[in-house]
């Protein structure tokens, strides 16, 4: 069942972890239960060090872990294509927030949703 919120983090700790602005090459992910706001589990990002395909690898990781929404600073074009195909919503985090802060903003409707593939 797909329902969790994933936040890309530099180190997969918990609610106090800092948001990693990169999706594909994030250190890991903190998965949050949207009903309780608590940590469901943490994931190392095994794709982070891939020469190519870090974005699609991380997208696959989301799919295998029941993620419905993912929050990060930026999503590359292949990650966008993969997450879009997987039906995972992408949300943009401002810089310098913790997992707790950015999840609060997401639940309060204060984040921007990424709906257009960007090349940069």
């Amino acid at each position, binding site marked *: 069942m797909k329902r969790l919120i994933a936040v890309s983090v530099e180190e997969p700790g918990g609610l106090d972890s800092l948001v990693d602005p990169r999706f594909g090459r994030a250190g890991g992910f903190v998965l949050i239960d949207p009903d309780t706001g608590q940590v469901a589990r943490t994931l190392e990002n095994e*794709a982070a060090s*891939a*020469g*190519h*395909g*870090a*974005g*699609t*690898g991380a*997208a*696959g990781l989301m*799919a*295998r872990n029941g993620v419905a929404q993912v929050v990060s600073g930026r999503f590359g074009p*292949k990650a966008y*294509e*993969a997450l879009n*195909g*997987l039906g995972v919503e992408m949300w943009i985090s401002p810089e310098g927030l913790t997992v707790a802060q950015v999840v609060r903003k997401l639940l309060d409707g204060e984040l921007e949703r990424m709906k257009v593939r960007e090349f940069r």
Partner: protein
Amino acid sequence: MKIAVASGKGGTGKTLVATSLAATWASRGHGVAYVDADVEEPNGHLFLSPRVEEERFCVKVPRLSGKRCEGSGKCNICAFNAIIPLGDSVMVFDQLCHSCGACVLACPGGYLVERDREIGTVSRGSAGDLRFWSARLDVGEARSTPLIEGLIGKAVAAEDAPERLVVIDSPPGTTCPAMASVESADLVLMVTEPTPFGDHDLRLAVEMGKALGKPMAAVVNRSDLGDDRVAETLAEAGVDVLARIPFEREVAAAYASGKMAIEECGGFASRIVALADALDSRLEGASK
């Protein structure tokens, strides 16, 4: 015998040397083939003006044979994350795929099959007595290495013989495309220039040649400019300099207008003749 003309740094004169050398050998009645392996920006044809036939070149990519699979997720073994299981389907990222076929083997129900995907064009033909081969990667493609391997494989199968010469004009750099273009060579001829960038990239290129176990020789182009560092680098590495080509405005002008500089500039032509002689004796020694 196969000679790869490589450099490390771009713009040192690989194509100038490779086309001149191939044409000089061909004029001596040797059976010679020129192979332009710089598939991202081939330009040997501008100087040799060959007549060619073209064929499209394909790599294998995985596809579902039907609309759905059983969703085992076993295809999630890709080292390049080029395929993602999506419930009872998959998503394939063609640009990331290295055509290894592992996902097809891993799929327990046989739902994945390999299909051809076009990535470029291979040209073959002739320019006078010279056999000519080149390839061009399609715009937007990310990986040139399969096309280079395919081009050289076809050219070597058709042209290589002990008494014949194959001159491979390599792409610059020391990454996979450059390695693929020198991998089958009996000798790597490094074309360098006496500049700081030339020396820096020559060091990398010589390291590549050593890692691949290739005999090497060098040409120093624009040899009267710059400093002595490339000469020192080559001496330290034990790579012989077979030709020094001083800068001549006439050579640059001929090259810039797509002409063969050996037909326009006598001094340059005699240096290429001497280079061909030096390589002949080097290759004779190697084949004994």
